[in-house]
C-alpha cells in the first residue's frame, strides 16, 4: 500500500469536508488552547539511543519543546507485537491527554491501521510510512535518494587523492564499500541506490557489500569494513544504525574514510571526525518539529497525509564532514549538485523507493 | 615417638545418628598394632558408618577417638590421613578417567615449581610396590577405567600406603573378588601386618573373618555386640551374635516338578555402554516350575544377561525366546505385558521412583495393565488398593501407601518391589539379588514366596552373589565367569567350594579352564 501512496503529492490537505470536520474536532478536544501540548513518541524496535532514526525524531520534538510549551513522553517499546496496545493505551490516556503521538518506523503501520480508525480523535504522526486517515501525518524520507548521493560522494573520491591526519585515499583503487545492518528490503534500498550513485559517477567502479545481520554488533561491522578496506575499498558507507560505529573504527584503523548515515555523524560522533568524509542525512528532526509545531498551532491540515520528503524538499542530502569536508575538492559538491538536479528532473531514476526495495 | 604399648586405634562410645536412624550406638573398638581386626555385621549394621567416623568423613554425635593413645578429633579425611589412617572404601574412590599414578598421588602430589613431579611420584610408588609385591607400578599411566577390579583394589591400597597410612581400613574388600583373588589379598594383608601396620577388615563373610583376622567385633543394629578372638570362635557363635538368634544354615529346599520350557536364551552376546563384551555366547533355558540360579562374582555379566532377557538391553547376537516365541526384538514393555516380571538388582535407581509414593510406585511397570485404567484414564483408586494389598501381604513397613519410597528402609523397599512383581502373575520371573540388604526374617519370607511361585508353575531365573541362596533355592545352578556360563550343575551335587572354583573360572577339580573367548580385550 505504501507503494501507491508514495506517489501522492506532499502535504496534501484533507481532500474532503468530512475529514476536515474530524480535524476540527481534534482541535477542540486537543486541550492545547493556551495549555501545555502533550506529545508521546514511541520508539522503533531499535529503541532510543540508536544515534540515528529514533534519536533524531526525538531531537526534533525536543527542539520544538524549547520553543513551545510541550511536554514529551518517551515510550521505548522494542516489541512490534506490543505496538497495538501501546498505541491504544496512549490514545486512551487521559492523564495526560496526548495531543500527538509520534510513531517511529514502519513497524507501527499495521497496528496503526486499526488504531487510527478506532481513535479518530487522536492525532498520529507515522515516520517512514503513511496511512490514508485524516488523523495521520505520514512522513517518509527518501533513503534511496540520499544513498544515491552518498554513492556519488564515494564514487567521486575513490579515484582521487585525499589525505587528512594520516588517513588517505588510494587513487589507484576503484573500489568502495557498503556495510548494511539486516539484509532486507529496507537496507537493500540503501545498498542499491548507493551502488547506482557510484556507478553514475563511473560505471567501472566496484562496490563490495557486507551485511551484519543486526543493528547492534559493532564488532562484526568493524570486521566487515576492515575486510573491505583490505580488499581495496577506500571509502565505506554504512547503513547499520548503532553498529555503524564499528565501521568508523575500522576506518581509523585502516587509515581510510567512511560515510555516515541519518545524521551528520561527524557531529554526533566527533571522535570519528577524522574519517567521516560526509554523511547521508535525513532531517527527521525537522519533520517531527514541523508536526509538533502544527499541533501546537492547531494547524493539523498542514501536515496530515502522506509526506514524501526527498532531495526536492531538501529533506535529505549529503553533508560533508565537519573536519574532512573542507579538504574535499570542489568536484564533489559539483557532482552532488548535478546528481541532485538529475534526480529531481527525472533524468536519473534511483532504484528502489523511499520505503524499500 | 609413638607409644607402642597403646593400641593403634581406640574408639570409645562412638554414636552417630542420621536423623532418627542411629547408625552407631555407643560403639567401642580397639585395634592393636600389627594386628588385623575384623568388623562383621549384617547390611545396615553400621560398619561403614563407624569407619567413616574414624576416617573423618562423619562427625560423631558422641564418643572419642584415640590414635596411638592420643585423643584425636578429625574434621576431614585430611586430618585422618595425617594421623596415618587410610581407607579403602566399599565403592572404590578412584577417578576413572585419571591414570593410576594420578589417582595414587591425588591430594598429596609432590610438586616442584608448581608442577606435579611425576618422577618423584613414580619412584615412591615403585618402592611401595616392591616392598609389598604389588604389580600396580606396571600400569601407572593407564586410566583406571581400563583396569580390572582386582588391580583397582591394589591401586586403592597403594594409594593409602603412599599417603603414609599405618592403619588401613578395608571395607568389604572381598565382595568383588574371586576366591583366588581373595587369597592374594590375604597375602598382602599379612605382608602389611608383618611390616607393623594395623588393619581393620570389614566383611559379611564369617569364614573370611575367622581366617584372616586376629580379633572380630560384631555389630548389630548399630551396637557392638561383642569382640571375640578369631582363633577361639565358631561360625555359629558369630552368626548368633550378628543376627541375634540361632540361624538355620540349612533350609529345606523342596524341588519342584518342572514343566515345559518357558524361557530360552540362545547364543546371546551382549555389550555394555562402553562397548565391552560382557556376555559371550550364553545359552540356557528355564522350565515352568523351575528355578534356575545363576551364581558368579558380581560383574561377570550377570547384570547384562538379565537386562538382555528383560528387554532393558539389546543383545548383539543370539535370541531370547518366551514359550518358544522369539522375543529378541520385543520392547521391554511388550515383554512385561507378555508376562516377564523383573526384580532389578538396583532398587534405588530402577525398582522404585524414590520421590513417588508407594501408590504411584505400585503402577511402575504396570502402566499398561487394563486393571488399572478405565480405558481413557488411570484409576488411581484401584492402584491405591493394589498398593495396600502389596503392603499388607508382603509386610511392608510403614503400613502407609502414601509414604514416599525413599522414606522406606532398604529391606522394605525390596519387599515392596518383590510384591509388585510377583502380584502381576507372571509366567517368567527374573530376579537379581532379591534379598540383598534384606533382614533374615524377610529373606525367609521372600524365599518362601519364590518357592510358592515355583509351585504355581512360574519359571524363575535367580541371579545372586550369595552362594547359600542359590544353593538353597535353585533346581539347577549356572555359574558365570567373565561373561560365559562355565558350567551348569545340580546344587545338590556340588559343595560351595566347588562352586567357588567355578566362579573363579576353574573346573570343579581346580584345573584352569578357559571358557570360550575369555582372553581378549576385556
Amino acid at each position: 500500500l505504501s507503494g501507491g501512496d508514495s506517489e501522492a503529492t506532499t502535504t496534501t490537505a484533507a481532500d474532503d469536508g468530512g475529514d476536515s470536520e474530524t480535524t476540527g474536532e481534534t482541535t477542540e478536544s486537543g486541550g492545547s488552547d493556551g495549555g501545555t501540548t502533550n506529545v508521546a513518541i514511541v520508539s522503533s524496535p531499535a529503541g532510543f539511543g540508536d544515534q540515528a532514526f529514533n534519536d533524531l525524531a526525538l531531537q526534533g520534538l525536543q527542539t520544538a519543546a524549547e520553543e513551545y510549551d510541550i511536554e514529551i513522553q518517551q515510550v521505548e517499546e522494542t516489541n512490534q507485537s506490543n505496538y497495538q496496545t501501546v498505541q491504544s493505551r496512549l490514545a486512551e490516556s487521559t492523564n495526560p491527554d496526548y495531543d500527538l503521538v509520534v510513531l517511529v518506523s514502519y513497524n507501527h503501520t499495521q497496528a496503526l491501521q486499526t488504531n487510527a480508525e478506532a481513535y479518530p480523535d487522536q492525532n498520529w504522526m507515522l515516520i517512514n510510512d503513511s496511512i490514508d486517515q485524516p488523523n495521520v501525518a505520514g512522513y517518509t524520507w527518501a533513503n534511496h535518494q540520499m544513498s544515491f548521493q552518498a554513492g556519488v560522494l564515494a564514487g567521486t573520491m575513490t579515484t582521487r587523492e585525499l589525505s587528512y591526519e594520516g588517513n588517505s585515499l588510494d587513487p589507484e583503487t576503484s573500489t568502495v564499500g557498503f556495510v548494511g545492518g539486516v539484509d532486507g528490503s529496507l537496507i537493500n534500498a540503501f545498498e542499491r541506490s548507493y551502488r547506482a550513485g557510484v556507478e553514475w559517477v563511473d560505471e567501472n567502479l566496484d562496490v563490495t557489500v557486507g551485511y551484519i545481520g543486526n543493528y547492534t554488533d559493532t564488532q562484526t561491522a568493524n570486521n566487515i569494513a576492515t575486510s573491505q578496506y583490505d580488499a581495496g575499498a577506500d571509502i565505506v558507507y554504512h547503513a547499520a544504525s548503532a553498529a555503524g560505529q564499528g565501521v568508523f573504527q575500522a576506518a581509523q584503523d585502516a587509515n581510510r574514510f567512511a560515510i555516515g548515515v541519518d545524521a551528520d555523524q561527524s557531529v554526533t560522533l566527533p571522535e570519528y571526525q577524522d574519517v567521516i568524509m560526509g554523511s547521508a542525512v535525513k532531517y527527521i528532526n525537522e519533520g517531527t518539529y514541523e508536526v509538533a509545531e502544527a499541533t501546537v498551532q492547531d494547524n493539523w491540515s498542514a501536515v496530515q497525509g502522506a509526506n514524501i520528503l526527498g532531495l526536492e524538499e531538501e529533506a535529505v542530502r549529503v553533508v560533508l564532514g565537519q573536519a574532512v569536508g573542507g579538504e574535499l575538492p570542489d568536484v564533489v559538491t559539483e557532482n552532488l549538485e548535478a546528481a541532485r538536479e538529475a534526480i529531481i528532473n527525472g533524468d536519473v531514476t534511483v532504484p528502489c523507493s523511499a520505503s524499500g526495495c | 615417638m609413638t607409644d607402642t604399648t597403646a593400641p593403634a586405634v581406640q574408639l570409645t562410645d562412638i554414636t552417630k545418628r542420621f536423623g532418627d536412624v542411629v547408625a552407631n550406638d555407643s560403639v567401642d573398638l580397639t585395634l592393636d598394632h600389627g594386628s588385623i581386626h575384623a568388623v562383621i555385621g549384617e547390611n545396615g549394621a553400621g560398619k561403614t558408618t563407624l569407619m567413616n567416623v574414624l576416617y573423618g568423613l562423619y562427625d560423631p554425635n558422641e564418643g572419642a577417638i584415640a590414635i596411638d593413645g592420643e585423643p584425636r578429633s578429625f574434621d576431614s579425611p585430611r586430618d585422618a590421613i595425617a594421623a596415618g589412617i587410610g581407607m579403602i572404601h566399599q565403592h572404590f574412590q578412584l577417578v576413572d578417567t585419571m591414570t593410576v599414578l594420578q589417582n595414587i598421588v591425588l591430594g598429596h602430589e609432590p610438586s616442584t615449581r608448581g608442577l606435579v613431579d611425576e618422577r618423584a611420584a613414580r619412584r615412591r610408588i615403585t618402592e611401595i610396590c616392591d616392598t609389598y609385591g604389588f604389580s600396580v607400578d606396571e600400569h601407572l599411566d593407564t586410566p583406571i577405567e581400563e583396569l580390572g577390579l582386582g588391580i583397582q583394589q591394589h591401586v586403592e591400597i597403594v594409594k593409602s600406603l603412599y599417603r603414609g597410612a599405618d592403619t588401613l581400613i578395608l571395607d568389604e574388600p572381598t565382595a568383588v573378588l574371586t576366591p583366588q583373588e581373595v587369597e592374594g589379598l590375604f597375602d598382602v594383608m599379612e605382608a602389611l601386618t608383618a611390616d607393623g601396620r594395623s588393619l581393620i577388615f570389614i566383611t559379611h563373610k564369617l569364614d573370611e573373618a575367622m581366617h584372616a583376622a586376629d580379633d572380630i567385633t560384631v555389630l548389630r543394629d548399630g551396637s557392638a555386640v561383642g569382640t571375640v578372638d578369631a582363633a577361639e570362635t565358631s561360625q555359629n557363635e558369630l552368626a548368633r551374635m550378628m543376627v541375634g538368634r540361632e540361624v538355620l544354615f540349612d533350609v529345606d529346599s523342596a524341588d519342584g516338578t518342572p514343566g515345559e520350557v518357558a524361557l530360552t536364551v540362545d547364543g546371546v552376546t551382549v555389550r555394555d555402554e562402553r562397548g565391552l563384551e560382557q556376555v559371550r555366547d550364553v545359552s540356557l533355558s528355564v522350565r515352568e516350575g523351575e528355578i534356575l540360579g545363576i551364581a558368579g562374582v558380581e560383574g561377570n555379566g550377570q547384570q547384562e544377561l538379565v537386562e538382555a532377557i528383560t528387554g532393558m538391553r539389546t543383545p548383539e547376537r543370539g535370541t531370547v525366546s518366551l514359550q518358544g516365541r522369539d522375543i529378541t526384538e520385543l520392547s521391554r514393555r511388550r515383554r512385561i505385558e507378555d508376562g516377564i516380571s523383573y526384580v532389578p538388582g538396583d532398587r534405588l535407581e530402577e525398582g522404585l521412583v524414590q520421590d513417588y509414593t508407594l501408590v504411584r510406585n505400585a503402577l511402575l511397570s504396570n502402566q499398561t495393565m487394563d486393571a488399572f485404567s478405565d480405558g481413557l484414564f488411570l484409576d488411581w483408586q484401584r492402584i491405591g488398593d493394589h498398593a495396600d494389598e502389596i503392603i499388607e501381604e508382603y509386610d511392608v513397613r510403614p503400613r502407609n501407601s502414601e509414604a514416599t519410597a525413599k522414606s522406606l528402609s532398604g529391606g522394605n523397599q525390596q519387599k515392596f518391589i518383590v510384591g509388585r512383581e510377583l502380584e502381576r502373575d507372571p509366567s517368567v520371573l527374573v530376579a537379581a539379588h532379591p534379598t540383598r540388604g534384606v533382614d533374615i526374617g524377610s529373606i525367609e519370607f521372600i524365599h518362601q514366596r519364590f518357592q510358592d511361585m515355583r509351585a504355581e508353575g512360574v519359571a524363575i531365573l535367580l541371579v545372586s552373589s550369595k552362594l547359600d541362596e542359590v544353593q538353597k533355592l535353585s533346581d539347577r545352578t549356572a555359574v558365570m565367569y567373565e561373561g560365559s556360563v562355565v558350567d551348569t550343575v545340580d546344587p545338590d551335587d556340588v559343595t560351595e567350594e566347588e562352586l567357588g572354583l567355578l566362579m573363579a573360572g576353574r573346573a570343579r577339580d581346580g584345573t584352569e579352564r578357559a571358557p570360550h573367548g575369555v582372553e581378549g580385550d576385556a
Partner: protein
Amino acid sequence: MSDAATGVRSLADRIADRMLDASALERVVIALVATALALFIGAVIVAASGYDAVEFVSSLVYGAVGNASNLAFMLRQSSMLILTGVAVAVAFRAGVFNIGVQGQFVVGGFAATLGILFAAPLLPNSSISAVPLMALAALLALAAGGAYGALPGMMKAYAGANEVITTIMLNFIASGVVYFLLDAYLRPEGAAAPNTEQFPDYVGLPGLVFESPSFSILGLGVALLTVAVVYLVMDRTGFGYDLVTSGYQEPAAKYSGVDPKRMIVRTMTISGMIAGLAGALFAIMILGYYSDPNTFPTFGFDAIAVSLLAANNPLGVIPAGLLFGGLDAGGQYIGFTLDVPSELVDGVIGLIVLFVAAPELFRAAGRYTSLGGDRE
C-alpha cells in the same frame, strides 16, 4: 462427555489436595518470597539509580490491573505465557530442558500464517471461512512447532547433543530463516516492513468481555483448556505417568518399559506443539499478520521463568503466567509513565528465576529465622 465431567471433578479435588500438600505449599511460599525478593531488589535498584521506588511499584501494579484496558493487556500477555509456560513445563517435567520454545513458537506462528494466507483465497471471502481457516492454521502450527521441537529431541536422543545448546541455536535459526522467508517471499509488493499482508478481517477471535483488538477472552480460554488437557494427560494417563517418571528417575522409567530415547523425542514434540499453538494464537489474536520474529516478545524465554515458578506443574503455570503477564503489562506501563527504563523489569524477572532455582536458599533462610518451621 461424562469422562470430561469426572475429569473436571477430580481435577478440582486434586487442586484441593495439592493445596494441603506441604511440599506444594512450600513451593507456593518459595515462589511468593522469590517474587517479592526480586521486586524488592528491583525497587532498591530503582531507588539507588535515583528514581522513585514507590512510584515504580505502584505504577507496576496499576499498569497490570489498574483499568480494563490494562487488565486486557495483562491477560493477553498471560494467555501467551500460560501456553508457552505449559510447553516448557511438559518438557522440564520429563527432564528435558527445552529452551527452544521461542523458536518453536516462531515457527508455529509462521506455519499458521502460511496456512491462512494461502488458504484464504481458496475459501469464500466471508466469516464462514473463519473457523476452517483458523482450524487449519492451528493444525499447521501444531505440526510445525512439533516438528521443530522433535528435531533437537532427536539430536539429543540419537546423537547425544545437549538439548540446552541445540535448542538455543535453533531459536536463532528459526528467527533468521523466518525473517528471510518473510522478507524475500511474503512481503507484499512495495511494502517496506518485513510484514506479511494483513489476514482477512474475519480471521480473529471475537472480542468478548474486553474490547481490545488484540485480546479475546477466548485466547485465555485456549490457554486454560491446554493446561487442563496437559494436566489430565500427565496426571491421569499411562503416557503422562511415563513422561513424569522419566523426568524423576530415568532408569526407573526405563525399567518400567519406557524407551527413553523415544520419550525424549515425544516430549519435545508435544512441547513444541504447544509452543506452536501459542505461535498461532499470537499470529491470529495479537498480530493479525506476521512479521520479523526478531521484534517479537520473548514469550518462549519468559515461559521458562513461568514454568519454574510453577515448579513445572501445569496447574501452577496459571498463577505464574498471570503474575508474569502482570509484570509485563506493568513494565510496559512504567515505560510510558516513568523515566525508569523498562529493561529493569526483565532484570527482575531474571532475579525471580535465579531465586526460584535455589529453593535451598529460602529453606536456609527459613531455618535461620525459624519462620518456615522445620521441613526436610
